[in-house]
Each structure stands twice: as C-alpha cells, then as structure tokens.
C-alpha cells in the first residue's frame, strides 16, 4: 500500500488536468464546432461577404452606366451629350415621371422644359426638373450623380457666356472652396471596419465558452467536481489546468480567425474604391500580441461567471450576458469619436480596440501603446485569476446538490 505518498518524480498535476481537459473536449463535437469552425470561420466569412456586397454596390453605382428616362431630350442635345459623357444613358421619355419614380421603375427622371431651346438661345434661365424619391436611400448615389452632371454643365455654359461677353468667369464665383481630404486609402477603410475588433474578441470568447462552462458548472452538474477535489492536488492547480485548457482552445480560435481574415481579406475589392486593407501577417502578428493577454482574461472571467452558476444552462445565460461586455468599447468608439488618450490603452478591451483600429488605419502602434495595452490587460488577468482562485476555495463550489 502506498502509505508514504509518491516516491518517483511525477508529472505536474497542472499538466495532468490540462491534457485531460483538452483530450476530453477534443471529443466533444459542440465544443470543437464552436472553437474551431463556427466561431473563427463564420465571423470573418460573414464579415467579408457583407463587406463585399456593400462595396460592390457602391462600385456599381459610381461606375455603371446609369439609365435615366429623359423627357424633352430633343430640346437640349448638348446637355444630353454632357450627361452621356458622364455615364448617363438617356432613356425614352415617360408619360408620368412622378408615378415612374414612385413605382420604382426608375431611380431618377429628368424633364427638360418644352421651351428650353428658345430660352437657351435667348440666354434666359431655364428649368430642368429632376424627379426622385429621397426616402429611397439606395437611389441617392444616382440622384447625386445626375445633379452634379447637370450643375457642372450649367456652370460650364455660364462661364462660356461670361467669356463671350468679355468678362472673367471668376466674377460669378467670388468664393472657391478647395476640399483637402486628409483621409488615406487606409483610414477610409476604417469606417467600414469599426466592428473588426469586436469580431476578433467574440471569436476568442466563443472559442473558450463551451469549455469554460463545461469545466466549472458542467463538472458541478455532472457531480464530478467533488471526487476531483478529493485528490491530493491544491484546488488552484486544478483551476490553472482548466484555465490553460480554455486558453488553448480560444487561442486556436483566434489563430484560425486571423488566418481566415488574412486569406479572405484579399477577396475584398477595397482598393477599387480607394481603400487599402492590410490584414496580412504584419497585421496578424500585431493583433496577436495585443490580444494575447485577453486570452487568459476572458478564460478567467468565463470560469468565474460559470462558477457562480449551479447548472450548465444557468452558466450559459450568465456567459451570454458577459458576451455583451466586449461590445461596449466597439460601440463607444464607433458612435463617439474619442481622441485616444494614453491611459485608454491600459484599459482591457478598449486598449485592444484602439490598437487594432490604429493598425487598420495604417498608423501602426507605438511600443508605448503596445506596452500599456499588454501591461494593463495582464494586471487585470492577475487580479481576475486571484479572485477566481478565491472563489474556488469555497466549500460550496464542489457540492452539486
């Protein structure tokens, strides 16, 4: 009988717990699907698909020939030529332009007054009507395009008339607005990618979620925690082994997600609308570094929340609520344009969010920002782990009924 305890050097209990949890969960289809398939793959694919669709729609609108029914085209051949040069395809006249627009048969209808020709020759102002429905937001690009073409033609002709009378066209435009857009191709992309950090955090979250529930509330519900605690291993070592297993799964999720973003990022035709999107290895490496402390942080928070629950179901409810927390910085940053202060980088989740957005803008993160981000999150991890260890000491924790 083994009365004196182990005499040979043994594998650390932490590793025993870790390997057992990993092995057991590799056999669980739901955990595997969530950690390695739906979480990391569905997110990026969905994201990129939505993005591609909306980008393509934008592209279509600006490049595509735009059919516009024109009433009275014969009155203004030069205007029609100018419109044609701008990509408008004049269509045959319609009888009732209001109805045509309302019935969505056309995005915009142009009506040229019947006395256009005469008025033009006399040099008098003449009306050109545009019919559109501003409540149909998807037509706004088409309306904008036709409006701009007409106004441009008007200004051109006005200038020619002034010149013909020996005056400088500058007289008619005392002010000239010069727009100097400071957006870079990359920063323009940022608007569209404001939710990317959240996608990454959620991936991390989903990767470890089922494991976290299974390893605390699940084990309690299955009544296996009490026999487990009867072993001569301190509870904190068991907890750490479990946390490590959760981390392994969520880290795998994150890696797969980053890889997927890198691959599908190439499929987004961002450069065609003057955006630049770099989701390549450099981006991935920086994101990984930024998010590394979040891996144990989320694992610990999930375990902590799950430890309060009596059953698997209850834990699922709590953890779904916890999932709303990482969305806060993303929402905050997309609705309220905050100027980033140094301390913000030290706030877990917020710091990662800021850092990733900066990477997307192409600004890169400084060593100080990276350091603050990692240090802040790591400090929080340590606190969270200590709190969870304390929670694990509770006598009630092990008892199922």
């Amino acid at each position, binding site marked *: *009988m*083994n*009365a004196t*305890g*182990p005499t*040979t050097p*043994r*594998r650390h*209990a932490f590793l*025993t*717990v870790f390997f*057992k949890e990993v*092995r*057991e*969960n590799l*056999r*669980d289809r739901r955990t595997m699907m969530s950690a390695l398939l739906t979480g990391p793959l569905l997110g990026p694919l969905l994201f990129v698909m939505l993005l591609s669709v909306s980008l393509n729609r934008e592209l279509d609108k600006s490049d595509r020939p735009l059919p516009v029914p024109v009433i009275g085209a014969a009155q203004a051949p030069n205007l029609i030529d100018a419109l044609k040069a701008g990509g408008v395809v004049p269509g045959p006249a319609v009888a009732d332009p209001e109805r045509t627009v309302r019935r969505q048969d056309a995005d915009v209808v142009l009506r040229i007054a019947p006395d256009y020709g005469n008025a033009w020759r006399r040099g008098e102002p003449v009306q050109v009507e545009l019919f559109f429905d501003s409540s149909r937001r998807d037509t706004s690009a088409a309306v904008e395009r036709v409006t701009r073409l007409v106004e441009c033609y008007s200004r051109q002709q006005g200038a020619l008339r002034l010149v013909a009378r020996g005056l400088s066209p500058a007289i008619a435009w005392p002010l000239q607005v010069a727009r100097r857009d400071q957006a870079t191709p990359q920063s323009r992309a940022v608007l569209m990618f404001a939710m990317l950090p959240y996608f990454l955090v959620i991936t991390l979250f989903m990767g470890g979620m089922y494991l976290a529930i299974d390893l605390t509330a699940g*084990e309690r519900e*299955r*009544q*296996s*925690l*009490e*026999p*487990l*605690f*009867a*072993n*001569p*291993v*301190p509870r904190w070592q068991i907890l750490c082994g479990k946390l490590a297993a959760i981390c392994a799964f969520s880290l795998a999720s994150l890696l797969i997600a980053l890889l997927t973003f890198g691959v599908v990022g190439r499929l987004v035709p961002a450069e065609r609308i003057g955006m630049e999107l770099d989701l390549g290895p450099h981006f991935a490496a920086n994101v990984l570094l930024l998010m590394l402390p979040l891996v144990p942080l989320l694992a610990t928070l999930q375990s902590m929340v799950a430890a309060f629950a009596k059953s698997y179901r209850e834990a699922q409810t709590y953890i779904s609520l916890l999932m709303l927390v990482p969305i806060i910085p993303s929402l905050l940053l997309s609705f309220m344009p905050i100027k980033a202060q140094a301390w913000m980088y030290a706030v877990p989740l917020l710091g990662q969010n800021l850092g990733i957005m900066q990477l997307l803008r192409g600004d890169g993160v400084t060593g100080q920002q990276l350091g603050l981000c990692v240090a802040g999150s790591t400090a929080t991890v340590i606190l969270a782990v200590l709190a969870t260890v304390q929670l694990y000491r509770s*006598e009630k924790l*092990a*008892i*199922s*009924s």
Partner: protein
Amino acid sequence: MIEARNVHKAFGSVKAVDGVSFVARDGEITGLLGPNGAGKTTTLRMLYTLMAPDRGQVLVDAIDAAIDPLGVRRRLGVLPDARGLYKRLTARENIDYFGRLQGLPDDLLKSRGDALIAALEMGDIADRRTEGFSQGQRVKTAIARALVHDPRNVILDEPTNGLDVMATRAMRRFVQRLKAEGRCVLFSSHIMQEVGTLCDRIVVIAHGRVVADESPDALRALTGEANLEDAFVKIIGSDEGLAA
C-alpha cells in the same frame, strides 16, 4: 486509521454535525449508520477534507486534516456521494486521470488499473466511454478510480445505493476483500441488514450526533433486541425521546 474528534459543522442555523467522535480502525469495516439527513455525508465530507469542521479535529493515520489536507487525501480513497464520471472518457481513462492526480508513475498506473479492473470484474467495460453506463458500472468505475493509488483508508458513501441485487452482492464481496487486505474501511449506509452483515463496528448517527458506537452483537445486546433493525429503531427512538 480514521479518527473524528468532536467535529461540528453548521450551515447557517442548521447544525448538520454536532459533535461527532469515532475511530475507524485498520483491518476493520466501520459502518456509519443513520437515517437520511442525520449528517452522515457531511461527516464524511469533513473526513476527506472537502469541508473544514467548524470545531473538532480529523486525523487520518495520525495526520491532522487541518494541517496537512493533501497528506490526508493521499492516504484516502474516496467514493463520494457524487459519483460523476467524465462521460467522454473511457472507464480506464477516468481511472488513469485520478491515478495521475494522485501522482502515480505510468507503469504503476497501468498495473494498478489492471488489478482493479480485474477485481471489480469490469474488464468488458474498461475501454468503453462511460456515457450510457448503468448505475452499477458507474459505481465500479468510481470505486476503481478512488482506489487507484492503493490507499490504506477507504471511505465509501452509500456504495450500494441504486445497485441491483447482483451488483450489491459483488460490492459487498469487494468491501470484504478490502478489509482482508488490512485496510481501514469506513462506509455509510441506511440499510440495516447490510451494515449488520458487513461491519465489525457500527457508529449510529442521528441529528448530527453519535448515539451508539458498538459491534453489531453488542448493539443487539445493549438494546435487548435480537433484530438489528429493532435495535436501531430503539436507539434512534430513545435519542429522539432524549432530545424532546
């Protein structure tokens, strides 16, 4: 040897265990007998250090559980009230996991596992995943993993609970065998007949207190009842009379 010295445990205002003392000796089977809710499971939980007593002392092979709980757990094999297995692992993997946590080296793990699987007659299920096991198969697996480190002291909380006749008989044979190997066996039960046939010593608990600590024969003699069940009722009944 397992020794409880005047242990107390209260949950809020409920005194679950109210000054329990007894000794379970090596080479003997000690039965913890009592009605449901008498404090048996709470007492056992304090013995295997899942809970700390509010007052009193627990000693296992003279090691104080309050000072060296890990040392106590190393000397104990425990079948708790909760017998949860890991259903995605096979029976053998369940046993191995606990063996590793007990610190057994791989070669010893293998031989101990094989010996227990043979002794518990569970060779046919050893390499099956435990999901879908019958109650008897689950208890066998739980016992095997509790004893994989070859502990001198064995605590079994209602080991025959939910077992059919055949499984119960096999379980009793196994408990006898543990005794024959010189171990200290402490088991709880609320089945009189089982305690009467198996135990060398019976500790009767009611309302969180020890109301008798005798051999079955002495218990019968003490109460003047030939039938152990009547003796038991008499002891519990008189205690209730005292408390009232």
